[in-house]
């Protein structure tokens, strides 16, 4: 962006959708449109499709602030070379009312794609978001599991192309996990992106209902790395060591399911590597307080997710291990439908 363009630049705040409300003031779904305005967007970043997934909302708002400073020339030597769209929160009312779904009718916005501009409220939101972001060469949708389960910051790919595998590496997150594009994935934003060509990545980081600052910092760094490696941004280098990126195929993900109910307690952190037989956590009887069982991992691998909710039903997921060997089964395909 040259000096004349910079002076004419309005800060990039735009409105994706303006809607009336039944008994309060009108509301918008806002987004940031940053970088050279005369070209098609190279990247679209989306978060807050679920209103309780706060890590992505916070990171994208901070990233927009950072990019605005770059565009305004306040970051010496840094230049945003390509146009970027940033939608920190799609489900605005959900964020403000701490609701995962669209609060009025309880629909999951991420099951409404491709949407319809003359349809239900969430179909209209979905259609507008898809129309805006489809134009971008790369799109990234950021999620945070649900309120019960913490996910290691990771990239999820669904039946990906070779280009998507390569682009996933640019984020530098510790795990890239491939999943089949089975029915739980259908009707999601990422699925609609896939059907329209171009690159689509999903990021999972942390858990919903609150914010985890360490995951946010890692995510911020990952996105800046992506900008740099995709040729969107020059002149910025975050002084952090490169992490190893591990790829895991559709059958390399192992869910540890509890066959006991009770109170689940674990000291594990996501990102740890475990040997087969190591302890994952303990289950206590909720009434008597007696130890009911210890949970051990049957396989070695990376802890990509751990249960943070102590209340445990029979059949609940307590951890997910990513293995270098093929270990997964079809059950995990269903489990992956949750939190996304």
């Amino acid at each position, binding site marked *: 962006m040259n000096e004349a363009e910079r002076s004419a630049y309005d800060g990039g705040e735009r409105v994706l959708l303006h*809607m*009336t*409300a*039944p*008994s309060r003031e009108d509301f918008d779904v806002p987004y940031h449109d940053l970088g050279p305005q005369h070209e098609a967007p190279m990247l679209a970043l989306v978060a807050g499709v679920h209103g309780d997934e706060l890590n992505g909302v916070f990171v994208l708002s901070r990233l927009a602030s950072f990019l605005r400073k770059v565009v305004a020339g306040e970051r010496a030597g840094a230049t945003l070379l390509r146009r970027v769209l940033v939608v920190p929160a799609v489900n605005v009312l959900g964020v403000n009312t701490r609701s*995962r*779904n669209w609060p*009025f*009718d*309880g629909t999951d916005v991420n*099951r409404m794609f491709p949407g319809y501009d*003359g*349809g*239900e*409220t*969430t*179909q*209209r939101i979905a259609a507008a978001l898809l129309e805006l972001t489809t134009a971008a060469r790369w799109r990234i949708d950021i999620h945070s599991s*649900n309120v019960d389960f913490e996910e290691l910051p990771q990239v999820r790919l669904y039946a990906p192309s070779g280009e998507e595998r390569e682009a996933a590496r640019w984020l530098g997150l510790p795990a890239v996990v491939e999943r089949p594009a089975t*029915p*739980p994935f*259908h*009707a999601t934003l990422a699925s609609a992106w896939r059907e329209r060509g171009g690159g689509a990545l999903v990021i999972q980081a942390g858990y919903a209902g609150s914010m985890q600052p360490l995951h946010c910092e890692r995510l911020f760094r990952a996105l800046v790395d992506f900008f740099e490696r995709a040729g969107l941004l020059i002149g910025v280098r975050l002084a952090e060591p490169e992490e190893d990126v591990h790829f895991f195929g559709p059958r390399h993900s192992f869910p540890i*399911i509890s066959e*006991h*109910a*009770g*109170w689940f307690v674990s000291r594990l952190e996501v990102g740890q590597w475990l040997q087969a037989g190591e302890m994952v956590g303990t289950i206590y009887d*909720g*009434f008597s307080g007696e130890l009911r069982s210890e949970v051990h991992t049957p396989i070695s691998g990376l802890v990509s997710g751990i249960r943070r909710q102590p*209340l*445990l*039903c*029979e*059949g*609940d*997921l307590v951890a997910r291990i990513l293995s270098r060997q093929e270990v997964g*089964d*079809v*059950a995990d395909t*269903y*489990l992956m*439908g*949750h939190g996304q």
Partner: protein
Amino acid sequence: MRIRQEVFFALELPYRERLVLERTIYQGGGGPRVAVVSGIHGDELEGLFVCHRLAASLERLGKERPDALLGQVELYPALNPLGLDTLQRAMPIYGVDLNRNFPGHRAGLLPHRVADAAMRALAGASLVVDIHASNIYLREIPQVRIAKAFEATLLRLARDMNLDLIWVHGAATVLENTIAHSLNTIGTPCLVVEMGVGMRVTPVFAEQVVIGILHAWQALGVLAEDLEIEPNAHAPLIAHDGNVHYLNAEVSGLFVPSAAHWMALGKGQLLGRIVSPLRGEVLAEVRSPVEGVLFTLREYPLVYEGSLLARIMETQR
């Protein structure tokens, strides 16, 4: 006739209690096996009342004509008992729609396990009727919804079920994980009945659907041919994606209908108004775009832009 009430699925909850799913089985001769399921959504109660009325009919039959039950009837009134008991549409704890988790998995989470147990219990039945009650927002005339892919098998079964409407609709990806789609995919015919409204019971609709289900069972040979059943009083209109019109709110506010449910409408006829709760202003008038019949009507007055107000089946082209 043998009657037994039994647990077909149980699972431990975190603090002492168990989640238990029950069914009632009416066992007659060696004829076909049929089932009715309801309460997949915890805010839909109409199906529970239909199950009660069917149970009452069968129990009366057991006293008066036990020989007339040639096959086996299974009632599954409450597939989501935690949702029903806590007034939640979705499955409590998980917050997911049980009817988007079929066919489920034996080793999955609770919703997958419930779905798997239901699939195992119902597979192989000659007919499963899955009763829904729309949601708390919309009132539906008793109707059957059939996915186009299964039209050849299901339309024949649905025609004589005393319903007002049969809606043959195109594929929707979100419906792939429903109980009906999953059962039909494995060759177990499953009809989805929609009737009434969420969190309410509409006895007149229930009686209508009970008569229709009894006729369907008789046609399948579950009930004796000579058993007298009240005649069907309703013949269905056939709706499809080409003749169903959706009316969505173009502005947010309070929707106040001026037309009655299942009313014949002329083109341009007023259905209702969207008004402002803050001012005396009428924000929008809602008019029928076609000549037709009003088979879905909004029950919950508050609307956002896009909220569904009505569905009309066009009757003249």
